[in-house]
């Protein structure tokens, strides 16, 4: 499915207005109270600020919120415990202006969310949400989508991909049936396809820009990583790590969660799942007190290996979309592109 259409900036704004009028939730890059752009639900089309840099956190929180109730409990007569399931989130929503790397992260996560157990809240939100991405021109030197098999114009995870063709217009490529339904539902907002050459030129320039500063491809590093589990690299790379988990909080693919039971009143409470991160000692500590990942080098290695080796082996795709947020967020100045370049140099030397 690769037919295309065209939409102008004003029609894109109009589409957002149409959706809001139809009581569809609209989300996209918008300014927070401190002026920083983050993905937010928009109350009006004017709140959306497209292509204004990489939003502070990724898109994943629209599908896996930082905290989410799973069910409530209530102790009734005779001490009988009653469980009240949290309703499945099914409000229709459209994301407008997602970064392609963020959309790709959502699709990568579908694998783990639908593997041995189908995660109902995740897929309820996935099915209710249409993702309209905006092809990226390449943002800064921490971008490395081209190193993980993606590109600034990747369609992975998007239902519709907008590519700037100049004059404030976008060529809209229909990627999925869901994307086609969105176009079909609001025909007045779309025009016949145009600007193929302009779109292609934009995509080519963006790919070249990112590739120019991105580290070597991560895929070929797997054999070296498999063979060098205890390499001193991990100790050196993690010296400056604070174990703070900011990287995981902003990551489009870090999806680990903790499950907690929180009493609300006597006899009632809520079971919730909350974001968690492998970067803290608490993540892996056993009831016995033993901690298999007892220092930061082991935790940094875990994060990198999970993304580049473990997840790809199990699910056939990389658990990193190269968005660069971990590098931008790290208060200690850790840099994943630098670590990968270092591994590539070591792997090259070893062959």
């Amino acid at each position, binding site marked *: 499915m690769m037919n295309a259409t065209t939409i102008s900036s004003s029609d894109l704004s109009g589409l957002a207005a149409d959706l809001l009028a139809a009581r569809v939730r609209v989300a996209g890059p918008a300014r927070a109270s401190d002026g*920083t752009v983050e993905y937010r639900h928009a109350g009006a089309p004017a709140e959306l600020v497209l292509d204004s840099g990489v939003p502070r956190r990724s898109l994943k929180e629209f599908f896996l919120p930082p905290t989410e109730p799973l069910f409530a409990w209530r102790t009734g007569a005779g001490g009988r415990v009653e469980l009240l399931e949290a309703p499945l989130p099914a409000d229709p929503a459209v994301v407008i202006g997602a970064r392609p790397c963020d959309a790709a992260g959502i699709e990568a996560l579908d694998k783990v969310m639908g593997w041995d157990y189908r995660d109902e809240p995740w897929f309820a939100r996935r099915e209710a949400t249409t993702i309209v991405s905006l092809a990226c021109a390449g943002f800064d030197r921490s971008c490395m989508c081209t190193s993980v098999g993606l590109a600034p114009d990747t369609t992975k995870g998007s239902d519709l991909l907008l590519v700037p063709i100049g004059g404030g217009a976008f060529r809209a490529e229909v990627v999925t049936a869901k994307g086609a339904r969105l176009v079909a539902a609001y025909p007045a907002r779309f025009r016949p396809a145009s600007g193929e050459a302009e779109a292609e030129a934009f995509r080519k320039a963006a790919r070249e820009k990112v590739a120019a500063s991105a580290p070597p491809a991560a895929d070929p590093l797997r054999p070296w990583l498999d063979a060098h589990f205890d390499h001193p690299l991990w100790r050196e790379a993690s010296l400056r790590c604070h174990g703070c988990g*900011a990287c995981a909080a902003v990551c489009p693919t870090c999806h680990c969660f903790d499950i907690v039971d929180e009493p609300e009143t006597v006899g009632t409470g809520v079971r*919730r799942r909350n974001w968690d991160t492998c970067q803290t000692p608490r993540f892996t500590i056993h009831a016995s007190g033993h901690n298999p990942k007892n220092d930061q080098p082991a935790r940094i290695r875990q994060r990198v290996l999970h993304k580049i080796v473990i997840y790809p082996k199990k699910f056939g795709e990389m658990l990193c979309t190269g968005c660069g947020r971990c590098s931008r967020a790290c208060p200690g100045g850790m840099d994943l592109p630098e670590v990968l370049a270092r591994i590539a140099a070591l792997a090259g030397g070893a062959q």
Partner: protein
Amino acid sequence: MTELRELAKKLLAEGAAKVVIGWEEGPRGVRPAFATDAAAADRLVFDARCAHDLAPYLDRRRVHVAKLGRPAVVVKPCDARAVAGLIRETQVKREDVVLVGVRCGGVLADPEAGGTLSADTIADRCRTCDSRETALADHVVGTPVEPLAAPSRRDARVAELDAMTPAQRWAFWQGELARCTRCNACRQVCPLCYCDRCMADKTQPQWIESSPHGRGNLSWHLLRAIHLAGRCVDCGECERACPSGIPLGLITRKVASVVADRFGHKPGDDPAVPSPIGTWRSDDPQEFIL
């Protein structure tokens, strides 16, 4: 810069330190560096981009850093106050660390963007810092600097919040704290948050709900504010590290002003001066105890 590098090389060569913890150029501006040889010492830098407080690397739980051996740490005056806090609270022994003080005229509000230090670009916390060099140092490097006269936007914001009604203030903080995902970055980068087991990590009983909902986030940030009362050295790391952009400096600044007002105390770089939370005097104000 040459003075700092030469000193670092001398400390390493003479065995006074096995690692000099300072700053170096990284892929996104300067970042913490761990120099264990002369070549790495030659890469050390110090300028207004060096916002990172390096005192947290003295935390005993960072075993992989401790394994490098006896550290020398480059400290700005605020970082020296953090080290003083660690010594005061028996986390670090003065004789176990070499302190290299750098003369500091403040750091940039946006260190990654770089540029020169001016009344416009200086970090808010540096506008109210009156310390240009620390007495808690074995060596002091750099040229003497004059403070920049710049009004504190943060103090102005604190005053605005003080002037709000409780309902307005509540709404403001509910809005800001709603962005918190409890990633713990504020805690992990804080030089004075060294507890082996943070109260927020305890589950039996669970004093602080770990969920990032309004109740849990408010409990966490209140707990942190109170535990840092009279201890926070205003190094600004919590606010810098927060990946959600929560203005944590407003909280620490407000609490610091309350401690200054009620206890006449401001955390300094003399480890011998006790902190209000770590001591008791019969004339301590207690009219706020219900």
